[in-house]
């Protein structure tokens, strides 16, 4: 087992490469993330936080450089293999929650397990357990439109844990929540980090993050400062 759950070496991301509107967003970026750490990525709007997170989350390919997830070099993997990495190693939490509105909280949490081909009975039991863990034991059969923002984000966190990934990535997970609810979500992430050793990486503007994160990565003009 490698020490670093994520390693990024000489990452560059250039949008519209070779065109007039070329944008060099990430510049020669190097990054090592320890297992079980709690990382916050901060920086002004447009500094490339989401882009960096998407690359670390195998949703976006860097223009150059290498990304290792749990020791696996992801550069040469095809779409299929990248999908499997996302499915098995990474849990995503989004600012807009991105739950499937036609499905109940329980079904939403089951979804990644169904994608992974987990037996229906097992996926149901685990989804129920996860929803209880995030404090939504009483809301399992509600659909997202009938849940508050904070509750929806808890469902999203439960969903991100479904396939027992090692990393949870959140792009402004508290961005749509009021201050109190945002704090609850951060507390929940902290608890998962501490008690179950999940590696947490969040992009955030939330100033309270300093109290939660072990390490803060500050982006400016495509570089870590």
């Amino acid at each position: 087992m490698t020490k670093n759950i994520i390693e990024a070496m000489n990452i560059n991301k250039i949008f519209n490469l070779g065109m007039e509107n070329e944008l060099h967003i990430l510049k020669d970026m190097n990054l090592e993330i320890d297992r079980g750490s709690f990382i916050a990525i901060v920086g002004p709007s447009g500094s490339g936080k989401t882009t960096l997170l998407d690359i670390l989350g195998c949703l976006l390919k860097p223009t150059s450089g290498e990304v290792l997830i749990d020791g696996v070099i992801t550069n040469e993997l095809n779409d299929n293999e990248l999908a499997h990495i996302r499915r098995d190693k990474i849990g995503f939490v989004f600012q807009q929650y991105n739950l499937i509105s036609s499905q109940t909280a329980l079904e939403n949490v089951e979804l990644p397990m169904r994608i992974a081909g987990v037996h229906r009975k097992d996926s149901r039991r685990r989804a129920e357990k996860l929803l209880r863990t995030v404090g939504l034991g009483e809301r399992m059969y509600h659909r997202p439109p009938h849940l508050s923002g904070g509750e929806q984000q808890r469902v999203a966190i439960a969903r991100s844990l479904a396939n027992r990934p090692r990393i949870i990535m959140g792009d402004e997970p508290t961005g749509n929540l009021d201050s109190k609810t945002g704090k609850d979500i951060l507390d929940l992430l902290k608890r998962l980090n501490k008690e179950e050793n999940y590696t947490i990486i969040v992009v955030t503007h939330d100033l309270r993050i300093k109290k939660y994160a072990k390490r803060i990565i500050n982006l400016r003009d495509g570089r870590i400062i």
Partner: protein
Amino acid sequence: MLDLAYKNIMRQRTRTILTALGILIGIGAIVALGSIAEGIDTMVQSGLELTAGKITVMEKDAGFFGVMGELTDEDMEVIEGIGGIREIVPMLFYMENMIPMQGPEWTAIGIDPSKGEYFIGENAEMEDGRMIEEGESGVVVLGYTIANRYNTEVGDFWTIKEDDFEIVGVIEKTDISDIDTSIIVDFDDLMDVTDSDTYQMIYVIPDDIKDTERIAENIEDASERLDAMTTKEMARQAGEIVDQIRIFTFAIGAIAALVGGLGVMNTMIMAVMERRREIGVMKAIGATNRMVLTQILTESALISLIGGIGGIILGVIGSFFVSSIFGGGQITAVVTPMLALTGLLFALLLGVVGGFYPARKASKLDPVEALRYE
């Protein structure tokens, strides 16, 4: 993922039902029209049973369904001159009130009573009464269907042209529509009533069944006018015609169904557009391109299958109507399992083909793009 597919298509219930309806109408047309072809096939096949081991002689180019041509005693003499023949059975047909597309109201068949077995078969039993006897005049025997339809029985009279004939017997149901729907009359009687000196058909029965083909050839060699067909030859010709009818009816239905297929495509394109974000989420959390493709294809196939099953039901209902409209009761349109299966498979095909483009589009969706998109 079938339950997911079902849930997804039911999110837009009305749209799904309307789309399925498009398929339903097309498959309904395939099945209903196809049932006519099957009905014609059954009728023709049962007709062929009648001619097994016989040679059917008609005037050349006399149609299968159309005008039946004219044979004379001279033609009889030509045939008599050929060796190896056991029996020659001239037959006269009289069709009452012939309506194009629907056929006649009923058909009287004139045949020498002593040779009646060659038409109705040796084992035909009487439902009631008796057969016409040799030398007997002024009597008829009815097929089962015709007796029932006109609610007549032994002792009643049947009018052909101006003359009344006493009904002396009703033949038991044979399931051969040519027999069940006919009125059997003495040959000479029917010649007199219809005032004809020609007839339409001669059955030739060979001494030895192995000589059938050879005798048929001899007859054609002996006369320019005559067309001698064995059962084999008739089966081939009839098969060709029925196949053409099958293809034709399928083509009509297929065009209707194709329009339904376009509807499926349209619906799925809309569904993929509406669910862009959701598909992006699925991919972000680990669904492969192939899974997304399968998911969308399953949905479109499901819509089509629902339409297809409805179409088969509609087709079965339609086939009853068709039976009562066409063929004057001669044709019983049937939905064979094969036909139903064809309809279902065609629906499935439309679903998969129609769903392929949107499914492919969905599978290629870039999750980052889809998630950024508000």
